[in-house]
C-alpha cells in the first residue's frame, strides 16, 4: 500500500515543484552562507598575516634598538595589536544566527576591553534588519509550508473526493488506509529533508570530515523530528470536521503562530523581563571613568598635549607619558568591568529564559538545535567573548608589567607575546546538547499521533455538507 501511495504522491505536481523549489533555495542559501563565511575568513587571514608581519618587523627593529619598537608603551598603545580570530566551525555556513553581528576577528591593544568589544564592523543595517538567507531559515520557515501542502487535505481531500466512503463500503479499514497514507507522506517529507541537508552540506562546507558527518546526521535528525511534528499537527487538524480549505487556513494560521508570532512574542517577553543594560548609560559611564582617569593624570598629561608625546623629545619623557596612559587605562578598566559583566550576565539570563520558553514554539526549538549544531548559538558566542576577555587581560598584563617596570622590549619579548586560541568546538558535544530539542519535538509529535489514533477510530467517511442532504 505504501508503494501505491508513493506513486500517487509522485503524481502531485505542486508537491514535486514545491520540493524542487525548496531544494534550490537550500542550495542557494548554503552557497550564500559559504560566501559570507569565506569573505570573513579571508579578511581574518589578511588581518592575522598583517599582524604577524608587523610583530616580526618590530622584533627585528627591537633587536636594532629602534625607539618605538623597544618602547613597551608605544607598542602597547599603538604599534602592536593582537589579532584574535574566531575559528570557523563545521556547519557555521548553514546557520548564521547572530554571528553576522559580531566580527569573526578583532584587533586588541592594551587599551581597555570596552574599546575592543564595542567595535562593530560597518555594515548595511537594512540587510542586518531583514535577516540572513541561510539554510536554517529556509528549512525552519519553509519546510512546514511544504508539509502543509502535502498534508492539509490528507483526510478531508479523500472524503471530498469520495475515496474514503468507497473504501469503507469496500470493507477496508479507513484508519489503516489513512495511517499508511500519512506514513508514506511523512517518510517522503523526511526524505526530502535529508536530501536538502545533504545538498546544504555539500554546497556550504569546504571539506568532508568526521565532524561534517556528525553535523549532517544532527541536522537530519533534528529536521526529521520537526517534519514529524508538522505532519502530526496536519493529521490532528484533519481528524476534525471541516473541509480542505478550512484545514489549509487553520494550518497556515498554525504556521504563522508557531513560526513567526510565538518566537517574536517570546523575544518580546524575554526583552521586557530582562531588559539589557543601557548602552547609552554605558557610554556615559565610560566617559565618566575616562574623565576620572584623565583628571588623575591631568597634570602630567598636559605636558604632552594629551596624547602627543612626539611633540616633546626624550626617552624619559616618553616612558613617563606611557606610564600615565597605562594608569589611566587600568582605572578605566576597573571602572567599566562591572558594567561589562552586567551585560554578560543579563545576556545569560535572557538565553536561559528563552531556552525555557522556546519549547512553546517547535520552530524556535528547531532553530535553537540547528544553531547549537552549527556552533552559532548564544552560548557559543558567549564562550568566545569570555575567552577574548581572558586573553585581553593576559595581553594587557604583559605590556603593563614592562611599562611599569620601565623595561625595554627585546626581540625575545616579541616572541613571547601571548597568543589567542579560539575555544575548541565539538560536533559530538553539540549533538548531545541538541538531543533535548529533538526529544521535545518527538514527544509533541507523538502526543498528536496518539490523539489522532483515538479520533481516527470514529472517523466520518462522508463530507459534512453531504450529511444533511
Amino acid at each position, binding site marked *: 500500500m505504501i508503494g501505491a501511495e508513493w506513486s500517487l504522491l509522485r503524481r502531485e505536481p505542486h508537491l514535486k515543484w514545491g520540493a524542487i523549489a525548496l531544494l534550490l533555495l537550500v542550495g542557494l542559501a548554503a552557497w550564500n552562507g559559504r560566501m559570507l563565511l569565506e*569573505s570573513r575568513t579571508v579578511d581574518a587571514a589578511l588581518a592575522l598575516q598583517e599582524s604577524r608581519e608587523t610583530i616580526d618587523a618590530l622584533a627585528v627593529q627591537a633587536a636594532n634598538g629602534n625607539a618605538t619598537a623597544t618602547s613597551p608603551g608605544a607598542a602597547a598603545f599603538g604599534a602592536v595589536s593582537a589579532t584574535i580570530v574566531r575559528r570557523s566551525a563545521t556547519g557555521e555556513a548553514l546557520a548564521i544566527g547572530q554571528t553576522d553581528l559580531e566580527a569573526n576577528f578583532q584587533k586588541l591593544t592594551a587599551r581597555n576591553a570596552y574599546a575592543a568589544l564595542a567595535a562593530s564592523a560597518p555594515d*548595511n543595517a537594512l540587510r542586518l*534588519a*531583514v535577516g540572513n538567507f541561510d539554510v536554517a531559515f529556509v528549512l525552519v520557515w519553509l519546510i512546514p509550508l511544504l508539509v502543509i501542502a502535502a498534508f492539509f487535505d490528507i483526510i478531508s481531500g479523500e472524503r471530498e473526493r469520495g475515496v474514503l466512503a468507497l473504501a469503507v463500503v469496500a470493507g477496508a479499514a479507513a484508519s489503516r488506509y489513512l495511517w499508511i497514507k500519512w506514513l508514506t507522506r511523512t517518510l517522503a517529507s523526511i526524505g526530502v529533508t535529508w536530501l536538502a541537508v545533504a545538498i546544504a552540506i555539500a554546497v556550504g562546507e569546504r571539506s568532508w570530515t568526521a565532524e561534517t558527518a556528525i553535523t549532517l546526521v544532527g541536522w537530519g535528525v533534528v529536521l526529521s523530528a520537526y517534519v514529524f511534528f508538522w505532519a502530526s499537527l496536519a493529521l490532528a487538524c484533519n481528524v476534525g470536521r471541516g473541509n480542505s480549505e478550512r484545514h489549509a487556513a487553520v494550518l497556515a494560521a498554525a504556521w504563522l503562530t508557531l513560526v*513567526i508570532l510565538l*518566537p517574536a512574542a517570546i523575544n518580546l517577553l524575554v526583552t521586557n523581563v530582562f531588559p539589557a543594560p543601557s548602552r547609552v548609560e554605558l557610554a556615559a559611564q565610560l*566617559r565618566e571613568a575616562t574623565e576620572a582617569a584623565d583628571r588623575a593624570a591631568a597634570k602630567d598629561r598636559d605636558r604632552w598635549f594629551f*596624547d602627543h608625546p612626539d611633540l616633546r623629545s626624550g626617552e624619559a619623557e616618553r616612558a613617563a607619558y606611557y606610564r600615565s596612559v597605562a594608569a589611566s587605562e587600568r582605572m578605566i578598566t576597573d571602572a567599566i568591568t562591572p558594567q561589562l559583566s552586567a551585560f554578560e550576565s543579563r545576556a545569560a539570563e535572557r538565553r536561559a529564559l528563552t531556552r525555557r520558553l522556546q519549547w512553546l514554539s517547535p520552530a524556535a526549538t528547531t532553530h535553537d538545535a540547528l544553531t547549537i549544531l552549527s556552533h552559532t548559538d548564544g552560548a557559543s558566542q558567549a564562550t568566545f567573548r569570555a575567552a577574548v576577555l581572558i586573553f585581553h587581560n593576559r595581553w594587557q598584563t604583559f605590556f603593563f608589567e614592562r611599562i611599569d617596570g620601565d623595561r625595554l622590549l627585546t626581540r625575545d619579548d616579541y616572541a613571547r607575546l601571548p597568543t589567542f586560541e579560539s575555544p575548541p568546538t565539538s560536533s559530538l558535544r553539540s549533538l548531545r546538547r541538541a538531543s533535548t530539542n529533538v526529544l521535545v519535538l518527538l514527544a509533541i509529535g507523538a502526543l498528536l499521533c496518539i490523539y489522532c489514533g483515538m479520533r481516527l477510530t470514529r472517523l466520518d467517511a462522508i463530507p459534512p455538507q453531504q450529511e444533511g442532504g
Partner: protein
Amino acid sequence: MILTIANKEFRAILRDGRALYGTIVFALLGVLALVTGAIRFSELDAERLRAQEHVAEQWRAQGDKNPHSAAHYGQYAFRPALPLAFFDPGVQAFEGVSIWLEAHKRNFATGRPADDAAPLARFGELSLAFIYQALLPLGILLLAYPAFAAERDSGTLRQLMATGVDGRRLFVGKFIGIGAAVLVLAAPVTILALIALVVATGTRWLAHATLLLTFYAWFAAIVLAASLWVSAVASSARSALLTLLAIWAVAVFVLPRIAGDLGRIIAPVPGAQRLQAAIERDLAEGIDGESPAAKIEKRRRQLYRLYKVDDDRALPINMQGVIFGIQDEISNAVYDKHFARLQSAVDAQIDLYEIVSLLSPRMALMLVSQELSGTSVGAQRRFADGAERFRRRLMATLNADITLHSRNDDPAYRAGADLWRSAGEYRYEFEPLREALRRCGAAAMVLLLWTLLAGAGGLLAARRLGSNP
C-alpha cells in the same frame, strides 16, 4: 450595480465568524505591539535626553584644561528616538546609538541594541509595522481568495455571469466591498495608534503619520487587487488559497532576505580591517600626493614669510594649534573619502533591494515606512553626518583657541568654561518631512507599478470571466 455587489461582500464578511476572530487576533497583537512599542520609545527617548544633557553638563563642567585635552575628551552624540519609531523601529536596533566626537577621528556609532538582543530576535520583531506589512496582507488574502474562486466552485459565478453582469464591475464591487471591510477591521488599532501619537507628541508628527497610513492603505489596496486577480484566474478556491499563501510567504519573508544577501555579494561593504588599514595609510601618506609633514612645512614657511620670522617661537601665534588644524584638515579629507566609499557600497545594496522590490511590494513599503518613521539607513546617516559636522566645528574652535591664545611650547596654557560654552554642545535637529519623502521616490514608483499591474491584471481577468466563468 457596483455598490450592490460591494454591499453584499461587505456584509458577508462582517457576518463571517472567521473575520471576527481574525479582527480580534489582529487587534490584540496590534495593541500588544503598540503598548510595548510606546513604552520602549518613551524609555529610550527619556534615557537619551538624559544622557545628552549629562554629557553636555560634563563638557561644560570639565574644568580648566588645555583645549587639545578637551578635544580628546570630546563630546558624545546620542541618536534621538523619533516618535514614529514606536510604529516602525526599522533598522534602529542594528545601528549604534552614540558617536564619540573626538580629535582627529571620525568614529562609527557604537552600542547597537542588536548586540544585546535575545536569541530569538532575528525571527522578527513584533512591531505595528510588522503587523501591517506581514499580517494585514495575510488577512486580506484570506478574505479575498474565495471572492471569485469559491463562486466558481459552487456554480454561482456562472449563474451571475449569465445575468449579463460585467466582470469588471463585479471586480470593482468586490474590491470596494472587501476593501471597506478591511478598513473597518483594521480601524480600531490604527485609530488607537494615532490617538497615542497625538497624546504623546501633539500634532508635530501627524503629517508623517497620515502620510504613512496613506502608503499602508495604498499597499493594502495592491494586495487586495492582486488577491482578487488570483481568485479570478484560479481553477478552484483551494488552488487560489494555496497560490496566494505561497506568494505571501515568498514576498513577505523570503525575498527581502534574498535581496539583502544578494546586495552583500554584489556590492560588499569594505571590512573594518581593510577600511581601518586604508584610512591609516592615507593619514600617513596623504591623499593628494602631498604628505602631512610636507603640508605642515609648507604652512610653516607661509607663516614665517607672513610674520617675517624664522622660528616657531617667534611667531605671534601658536604653531602647534596650526599643526592640529592641518592634521584635522587631512584627517577630515581622508575620512570623507573612505566614508563615502562605505556609504556608496551600502547605497548600492539598497538600490538592489529596491530593484528586487519589483517582485514584492512589501519590500517597497518597508523602505517608505522606515523613511517616514525616521528609522531608516538614511535617517541614521543624517544623524551621523550632523554629528560629524558638529565635531569639525568643535575641533576648529578648540584649535583656533590654541593658535590664538597660547604660545609655542607652553603646556601650562589652560582654557576654561567660557571656551567650552562658546564651542557649544551637540544637538540633533529633526528632519523635515519633505527630505524624508525625497528618499521614497523609487519605492513609491514600485508601488505605482504594482498598482497598475494588479489593477490591470485583475480587471483583465475579470473581463474574461464572462467568456469563461
